[in-house]
């Protein structure tokens, strides 16, 4: 795949296939990059404090503190305790969503039709990770830790009249976002399998995940 990135100083570089869950831990000061390898792929992402999982990324605290709906380069992300959890250090996509949440079997029955219930969903991915992943087990994570997430590479325009819709993505092959961890983080991702709307251009694809040390990292 031509869009695959090779960074010299990376400490981790993995590919997450379409429609799968993925977890990692990122230390404070490290940079975490998500690459949209084939374009228009929504990446449902949760950040949880590794030192105290009761503290996690909060979409609504981030919106209230920033007084801004869209996430873009330079945006600081905040926790439910009002602390900085991460910041968007670099981005060549343009904007990312945090209003759309994660798709689920249950919400698919509401949004589309009851017979979409068996289709794979982001919330199912979160549940798979919570039930099986060693990081989730180690930190005692469960369904209570799931809140409104970030949808990287997803486009959910809101109008001043209060209309909200899911639009075609504005991402493309090789677009990436790089997050700086402002505390030790647990990252929980669902590489979105939704096939009922254009959030993945009706074609879920793989993503690349890269962690690299910060510029000021001490190599003791």
């Amino acid at each position: 795949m031509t869009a695959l990135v090779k960074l010299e100083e990376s400490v981790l570089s993995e590919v997450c296939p379409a429609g799968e869950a993925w977890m990692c831990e990122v230390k404070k000061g490290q940079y975490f990059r998500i690459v949209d390898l084939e374009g228009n792929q929504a990446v449902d992402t949760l950040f949880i404090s590794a030192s105290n999982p009761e503290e996690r990324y909060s979409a609504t605290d981030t919106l209230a503190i920033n007084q801004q709906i869209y996430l873009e380069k330079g945006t600081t992300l905040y926790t439910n305790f009002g602390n900085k959890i991460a910041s968007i250090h670099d981005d060549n996509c343009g904007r990312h969503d945090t209003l759309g949440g994660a798709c689920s079997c249950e919400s698919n029955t509401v949004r589309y039709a009851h017979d979409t219930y068996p289709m794979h969903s982001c919330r199912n991915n979160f549940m798979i990770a919570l039930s099986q992943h060693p990081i989730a087990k180690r930190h005692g994570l469960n369904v209570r830790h799931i809140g409104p997430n970030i949808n990287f590479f997803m486009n959910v325009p809101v109008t001043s009249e209060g209309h909200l819709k899911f639009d075609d993505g504005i991402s493309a092959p090789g677009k990436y976002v790089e997050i700086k961890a402002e505390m030790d983080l647990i990252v929980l991702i669902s590489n979105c399998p939704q096939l009922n709307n254009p959030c993945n251009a009706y074609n879920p694809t793989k993503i690349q995940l890269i962690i690299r040390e910060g510029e000021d990292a001490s190599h003791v």
Partner: protein
Amino acid sequence: MHMSTITYHEDHVLWTERLPGGHHWSARIQRGAVLQLQSLGQNANVAFYCVNSEDKLERYNMPDSLKGQHTAFLSTGHILASDLGRAMISIVKDDHGWNDAFCAPSTVQLIEKQFGQQTFQDARNDMYRNGKDSLLLEMTKFGLSATDLSSTLNLFSKVQPDDNGNLSYVQADNTEQVIELRFEMDCLVFLSSAPHALDNSTEYAPADVQLSLYKALPLLDADVCRDSCHQNQRAFQNNNRYYALSA
């Protein structure tokens, strides 16, 4: 079309309670009840959060509520959806017209920044309270904690986006405004009448809010919330499955 003459509850008030501005409150509200909130002053805000009282892990879900109804705010005709695809509450009446779903409750930092600090020792029960700590206090009574507090709704408050996504708080005179919530599920409800996180007024003067409970009338053939869109009809179908053995 907004038809304010239609009523969704019986006339008889089951109970009433005055929630002083800045205070907090919680209760179980049963399916088939209508909770009426009336602002008794100019600058009301009620931070609102609810969970299923039988299964407290089923929560109000902001993203599912907004995307299911293609809206960036909640008002008359909308439902509050749970994270399990069911209707928790129907907003059957809303004089304010826009209830903010974007912003977290006010915090101790935001209240202090905007209004200063007033402790119990300084001011007894006129102390400055904030939305988040107030909700967490009420949730703790039921064994819930910060982990269980997801996004909330801000009744009587409008926060409007511009074309670039910048949010601004829109001041309004809330005096006498009424919001009526019809419960479609037995819920634990947590309320704080502390100022909104973006309230830019100079004085800490959140309005008192009168709470009144009524018995809901049966749903008509074309209900204001259930039948406002196909998505809500399907959410109500999920409720019918959940309560399959109930009347």
